[in-house]
């Protein structure tokens, strides 16, 4: 297969993505004395506590002052350190957007922005805490890599890859217990992975929605519909070759993300297809152009039609 490695992300293991990145961060801190961690009074909620306990002199709780935190992170970056800035996705990307843009993006300083409570994963926290814009905003920053891994292992791998990546990185951590990744599929920024083979339609997914996409593909297979699942853990730079191959080899594309349908993975796929003159039908699943109501996250995913049932239904509609 020219564009990726087939592997399975569905074997459940009781290690959350939060715990997983927290451990990876401690490993990085042990190996690299230039790694520092900054949070805005959220070290416990974000599970940055492991790093705080291991390296107190390199851990900074800067209080509920996000603009100062990101500016200070740029001061660290300009002084030879590599800051990992950890926050809730909405505040990370919106309250301090201009600092990320002008203090990191423009001067090409290296920082890693780790966000929790992505998409509607906070559920009943309400719209102030739902991050449905973060992927779109971070895609707008030149040189920013935008990562949305699906599971705990890949979140750890993404954290390590973010360290090695030459530019700034936005890493969106999906909440809750999630599936375990493949042993033999390396996490390479910019390279999508095929988690289900199929030639009828392609579901392009990122974050925890890859698990739902795989379930949808399995249900469709029972009815003889063979949906490929393309796991784009890197929303930017998008693996355009894998997307275009899917568009040429299957009859419909359905994108799935825990984000607004505007500007995130669906937007990136739409830009890629249109730019290549590709007429393959595209359906974008995610949060439509509205703020979400209160509800538990699985209820919200069903409400907006991007749980496994909703994804399967969208594939059927696209092929009808």
């Amino acid at each position: 297969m020219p564009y990726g490695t087939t592997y399975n992300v569905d074997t459940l293991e009781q290690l959350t993505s939060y715990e997983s990145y927290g451990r990876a961060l401690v490993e990085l801190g042990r190996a690299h004395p230039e790694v520092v961690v900054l949070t805005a009074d959220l070290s416990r909620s974000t599970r940055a506590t492991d790093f705080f306990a291991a390296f107190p002199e390199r851990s900074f709780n800067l209080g509920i002052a996000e603009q100062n935190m990101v500016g200070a992170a740029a001061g660290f970056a300009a002084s030879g350190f590599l800051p990992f800035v950890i926050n809730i996705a909405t505040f990370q990307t919106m309250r301090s957007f201009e600092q990320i843009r002008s203090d990191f993006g423009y001067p090409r300083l290296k920082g890693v922005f780790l966000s929790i409570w992505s998409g509607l994963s906070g559920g009943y926290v309400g719209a102030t805490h739902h991050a449905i814009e973060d992927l779109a905003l971070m895609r707008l920053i030149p040189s920013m890599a935008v990562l949305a891994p699906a599971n705990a292992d890949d979140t750890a791998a993404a954290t390590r890859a973010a360290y090695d990546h030459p530019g700034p990185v936005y890493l969106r951590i999906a909440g809750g217990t999630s599936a375990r990744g493949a042993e033999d599929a390396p996490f390479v920024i910019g390279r999508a992975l095929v988690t289900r083979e199929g030639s009828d339609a392609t579901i392009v997914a990122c974050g925890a929605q890859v698990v739902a996409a795989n379930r949808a593909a399995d249900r469709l297979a029972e009815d003889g519909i063979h949906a490929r699942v393309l796991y784009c853990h890197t929303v930017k730079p998008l693996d355009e070759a894998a997307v275009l191959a899917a568009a040429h080899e299957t009859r419909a594309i359905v994108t799935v993300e825990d984000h607004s349908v505007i500007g995130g993975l669906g937007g990136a796929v739409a830009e890629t297809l249109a730019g290549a003159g590709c007429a393959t039908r595209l359906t974008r699943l995610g949060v439509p152009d509205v703020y979400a109501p209160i509800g538990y996250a699985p209820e919200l995913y069903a409400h907006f039609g991007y749980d496994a049932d909703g994804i399967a239904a969208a594939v059927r509609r696209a092929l009808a």
Partner: protein
Amino acid sequence: MMERADDLVARLRARACEIREKTIRLGVQSGSTHFGGSLSMVDVLAVLYFHVMRIDPARPQWEERDRFILSKGHGATSYCPTLATAGFFPDAAMESINHLGSAFGMHIDMRKIPGVDMSTGSLGHGLPVAVGMALADRVARRDRRVFCLMGDAEQNEGSIWEAAQAAGHFRLGRLCAIVDRNRYSSEGDTEEILAIEPLHEKYAAFGWDACRVDGHDIPALLDAFGRLPADPARPVAVIADTIKGKGVSFMEAGATWHYGALSEEDAARAIAEIRAAR
């Protein structure tokens, strides 16, 4: 041999005049620029760059250098000539200003201009970055100092006060903030638009060692900066009372020359006045 105090003051005054003249010339070359706020901060820059700060213009990336952040990035019209006068690059490098591909524009880019420690332009960004640099120096056990020059109307930005809280809380004794208190923003008197006073009391309340000086009085500036770090547990705020457009009579005070263009004739008048003051 130690420089005599009188000689030092005379030398710094001469540098300030030289920078003011270059500011006028660069401003004319730019077409229009922020003359008022560029001229008001020249004496502070002269004292920092030609006496106080540990720098080596031959090695702009020298690790042990003191850091300087121009949070009021629109002061570039005097800041870039200051760097040129200090020897970071030749004056001629600025001739391309504003044209496609030039390192020089209205604001400053750390990746293009030697001696610039942080890219700035958007107000309210400098002090948070300075806080991070001072924290980084603490982790790295470096004895550098970090200077951050801000505008006065910039004090309206909330991010400045987030950083002011952090600097006080983390006891960043090697951090020095300077406010170019020239009293006018783009649209008028700061106290009429959104009052910032009592400014030094505010910094003091945030845990800073705050003082107020005449920002054109070179011996007073030498005293203010000479005692750094004054207290290892307290950041220093120097509120420098200045005159917007200082050194050019028809530009002095008021918001009129916050931003504007100089005719050839007025530029010649301005330069003649600056030279006469030498």
